[in-house]
């Protein structure tokens, strides 16, 4: 023991995403609080952790205090996939303390907890809900020990009994420092953030002794499998530190003329923004990008926010999806966050070992986000694009762009700076026809065409045609024919 430092084992919580947010799992023998408003998922989280960690060798004691009737708790908790009836009585024991708490004597409650802990030697102890203990204490007023002492003693006892402990409660007032906060090693706060008509669940690790947690509010969902936390996307260092010139390898985007315009294809690992008005063929270009990858044996992932599943996606795309060469991210859940989509995308990228990713479109993406995230859309998007880039994939994002003929913009979010390459599409009027033009506005660290080319969409996809060299004022939407002498004539 001359090395000195105690080593703290970190227990995997069994809650997807929570270990990342906690900074590697839950420290063994820690004394934790799970706090939050009623309905925020505290009991569910506690049960999920318990069912993941309890074993016959490391049994769990779950003390229920007044609060929620245990019958109801058992009734509802067993609806989750993690609830395993076989574990009850074998590695998990539920113990009701209602009768002990009713008197309000915390000494008695503590004595009962100690007796049960001594009898069963649990590795995990849960007290749900702790608010009842607090209230009982207040109602009594003449308790022999104060709540503070109670918590302190409980914390000390549990640590010396080598039990990882959780107090579950909805009682705490965040702004009012409670002595319990000081005693606790960990503080997991669950919130329900309501904004306009939407509700989003968020989790924050306000404290976790001895380890670096991921700061901030992390969204989570409660589904049939229980709690799922969406940790912010992590950067893949291995790929990020990759050597070689970024533009050395170029990918075809599936439209040969556009590859030429891009300077020989899109550099691998780049993110490309395709901005254009409705109907300009952005999704078709995105489809061509994935199909080209599939032709070369690559796999791709698409997050489509506008088109309905299996409709108007085109037969080729449906085949790619059916054959498993393109994975689809389900974007229909309400109250999505950018981190959730990032997590889903990265998981699917890893699953399929995908090299091409399409997000169609940013405008649709913003619409499905819970309103509370819309203010931070740019920041979250920047984080997502960086995380995607760090996995080494090449990303194509589309963006709806209202045709404005007085200014030249590439995206309504100022997202243009996030991307490595930009392709712009717009409508122009020529000879009483609505024509489409396409141009490459940016390819980072690479030469590219600066021409505005006419293009058409037919059954074969996008066909890029000629430059309109005899027209000018194209970006104004109403070009005029250039005079032979070269004297420019402005439009009216």
């Amino acid at each position: 023991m001359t090395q000195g430092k105690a080593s703290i084992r970190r227990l995997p919580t069994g809650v997807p995403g929570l270990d990342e947010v906690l900074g590697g799992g839950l420290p063994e023998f820690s004394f934790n609080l799970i706090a939050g408003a009623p309905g925020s998922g505290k009991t569910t989280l506690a049960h999920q952790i318990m069912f993941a960690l309890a074993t016959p060798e490391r049994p769990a004691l779950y003390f229920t205090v007044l609060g929620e009737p245990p019958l109801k708790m058992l009734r509802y908790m067993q609806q989750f996939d993690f609830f395993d009836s076989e574990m009850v009585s074998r590695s998990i024991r539920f113990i009701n303390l209602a009768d002990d708490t009713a008197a309000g004597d915390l000494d008695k409650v503590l004595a009962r907890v100690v007796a049960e802990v001594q009898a069963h030697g649990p590795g995990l102890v849960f007290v749900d809900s702790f608010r009842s203990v607090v209230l009982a204490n207040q109602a009594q007023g003449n308790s022999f020990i104060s709540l503070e002492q109670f918590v302190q003693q409980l914390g000390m006892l549990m640590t010396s009994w080598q039990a990882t402990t959780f107090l579950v409660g909805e009682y705490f007032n965040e702004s009012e420092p409670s002595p319990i906060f000081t005693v606790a090693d960990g503080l997991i706060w669950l919130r329900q953030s309501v904004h306009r008509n939407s509700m989003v669940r968020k989790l924050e690790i306000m404290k976790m002794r001895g380890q670096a947690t991921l700061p901030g509010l992390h969204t989570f969902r409660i589904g049939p499998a229980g709690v799922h936390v969406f940790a912010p996307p992590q950067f893949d260092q291995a790929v990020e530190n990759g050597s070689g010139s970024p533009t050395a390898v170029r990918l075809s985007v599936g439209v040969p003329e556009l590859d030429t315009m891009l300077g020989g294809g899109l550099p691998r690992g780049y993110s490309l923004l395709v901005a254009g008005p409705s109907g300009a063929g952005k999704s078709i270009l995105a489809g061509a990008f994935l199909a080209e990858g599939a032709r070369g044996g690559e796999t791709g992932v698409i997050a489509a926010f506008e088109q309905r599943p299996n409709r108007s996606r085109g037969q080729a795309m449906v085949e790619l999806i059916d054959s498993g060469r393109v994975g689809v991210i389900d974007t229909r859940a309400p109250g999505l966050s950018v981190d959730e989509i990032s997590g889903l995308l990265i998981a699917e990228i890893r699953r399929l070992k995908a090299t091409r990713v399409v997000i169609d479109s940013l405008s649709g993406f913003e619409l499905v986000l819970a309103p509370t995230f819309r203010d931070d859309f740019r920041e979250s998007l920047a984080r997502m694009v960086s995380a995607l880039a760090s996995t080494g994939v090449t990303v194509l994002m589309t963006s709806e762009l209202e045709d404005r003929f007085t200014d030249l913009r590439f995206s309504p979010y100022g997202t243009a700076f996030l991307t490595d390459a930009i392709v712009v599409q717009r409508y122009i009027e020529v000879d009483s026809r609505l024509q489409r033009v396409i141009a490459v506005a940016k390819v980072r660290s690479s030469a590219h065409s600066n021409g505005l080319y006419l293009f058409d969409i037919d059954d074969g996809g996008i066909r890029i045609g000629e430059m309109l060299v005899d027209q000018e004022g194209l970006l104004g939407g109403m070009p005029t024919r250039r005079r032979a002498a070269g004297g420019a004539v402005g439009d009216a």
Partner: protein
Amino acid sequence: MPTDAQPNRTTAPADHAARDADAGRVADAATSTWRRVEAALSRIIGKRGVAALYQRSLYLARADHPCLAAAHEGALQPGDFTALRTALAGQSSPNAATASQALLQTFRGLLANLIGDALTERLLKSVWDNPSSGHAAQDTSP
């Protein structure tokens, strides 16, 4: 029927043991079974939780077994089964046995309806495993 009919795979041993005995013995066996039920469940769902389920079971079972009506009215304190004992002891022995059996099945069905068959079986295992010794079910160490 407010509760699902349960397969009769766990016949209460108290009833089985007392089938040919007099009503007093049936009543004693029933009381001891209920004490074991109480012991097995009250630490998990609380004394009051068990009492509420017990009273509801009496209320439901008394429709088919009117002799249980007195037990229902007398079940005032959690963990007190004297009214049930008195009610059963006053019956003919087959009547007492049937009523006692019906009450247990109703209770079991009610619990299963709330927390499912699997968990109900698990929690009441010690009741059926332990023959009618009259002792409260003991928790086995993990």
